[in-house]
């Protein structure tokens, strides 16, 4: 899948329906609203924190991009707050698992 090929290179892409323009998340081969083809494009680099918690000394948060795509990732440094703006700092794959890391803005 293009998404995972790009993610392995550290690029976070989003699938958008070529017909109805819906953003399809999690990434898929077809639109989940109309089953039309999707195209890949770069995702907005900035989003906001929906919720967060902390394990040991590391914060993790549920973040939202483009008002649609929600993912859980690490907070690289600082103390997060709800609705705070964040930037995708790092993403990729280790074996078959995705990882995301955000920095606070």
């Amino acid at each position, binding site marked *: 899948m293009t998404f995972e090929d790009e993610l392995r290179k550290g690029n976070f892409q989003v699938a958008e329906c070529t017909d109805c323009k819906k953003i399809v998340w*999690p990434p898929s081969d077809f639109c989940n609203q109309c089953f039309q083809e999707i195209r890949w494009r770069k995702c907005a680099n900035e989003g906001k924190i929906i*919720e967060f*918690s*902390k394990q040991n000394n590391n914060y993790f948060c*549920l973040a939202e991009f483009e008002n649609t795509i929600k*993912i859980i*990732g690490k907070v690289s440094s600082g103390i997060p707050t709800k609705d705070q703006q964040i930037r995708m700092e790092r993403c990729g794959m*280790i074996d078959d*698992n995705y990882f995301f890391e955000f920095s606070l803005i």
Partner: protein
Amino acid sequence: MGKVGIVSYGITKFSKEDSKIESLLLKSTKKLFENSPNLSRNDIDAVLVSTNNNSKYLSAILSEMSGIQPKISHTVESLCNSGTNAIVSAYSYIASGLADVVLVSGAERYDSPGQILEWDNSRGEFKHPIFWASIFTKSYKREFSITDEDLAIVSVKNHKQAQNNPNAISEKEYSLDDVLNSKRLTDDLRLLDCSRPCTGGASILLTSEDFCSKFTDDPIWITGIGQKTISAGFTKNTFDYMESTRIAASSALKMSKHNSSDIDVAEIHDAFSVCEPMALESLGFTDKGSGMDMVKELYAANNFKINPRGGLIGSGHPLGATGIAQTIEIVQQLQICANKRQVDDATIGLVHNMSAAATSSTVLILEK
């Protein structure tokens, strides 16, 4: 459509035993047969197995080991609500006329692969259930001004109630301080806030109305069924409310022609402390944000109405067996044979079983 009744059951003790999945299935099935003197192997039209175990062909294996040659046999997997999904499948076979007598057997090992949903990559590195539970807990605490001390009461209550359940994994009561001082898994979750994955099996026998009387004088009828799946991925969820539970409960209550205030006793899917008040609100037992008030009132009054067997936190959570064990508890309550756990005048009961952070829920209504 004829009525469908529950006429027998068998259950094992929940533990950390290293048993084979086939042995667990057989053990609770054997107990079910021992509880049903009039049950012959030839009576059984269908054998459904509920598990997340990776072993294959388990319903045929259980059938062979039990000497049954059913018309229908297959496995049902739906993470943590596999058990009630299998019961709903059994109900459907009977209601459609394809079967009259269905054996449903659920089992899981302590190391079940069903604890992690590999597909849900939107959770990144945070796929273990403690992370969605932490997000739920933080969100619920923030929205309704609930504290860790408040939520700890759920664990105290359910461990206490489990001491009257001979099959529960929990063998001691815990104080509020014990829960608050238990190992901190995240800022929002402690070890004693969690149900424990464990080893266990539970089986149940469903029949059409015409066949009930052969096996029992006291059948318990399934009068309401509601199911709803919102998504598979956690991140499409709501975080301080269980929308799939609300919809499933509404459907089940409508089918049974009851409302939530008619329910005398309920088994609620308390995978983590926060799930109990959230579920009570989503099931319509109390208003949004008031779930902890209800839990506190029940605990103060020593009222076992919610999770009399100790819930998942007190009983343990062998995924594929959980929904069946919950249903067995409500059957025992309605048959007035729950011993020290017995809720007074129980005539209508509810089972709430959910999967993967309430992305999917099943609700059953049971009646005498």
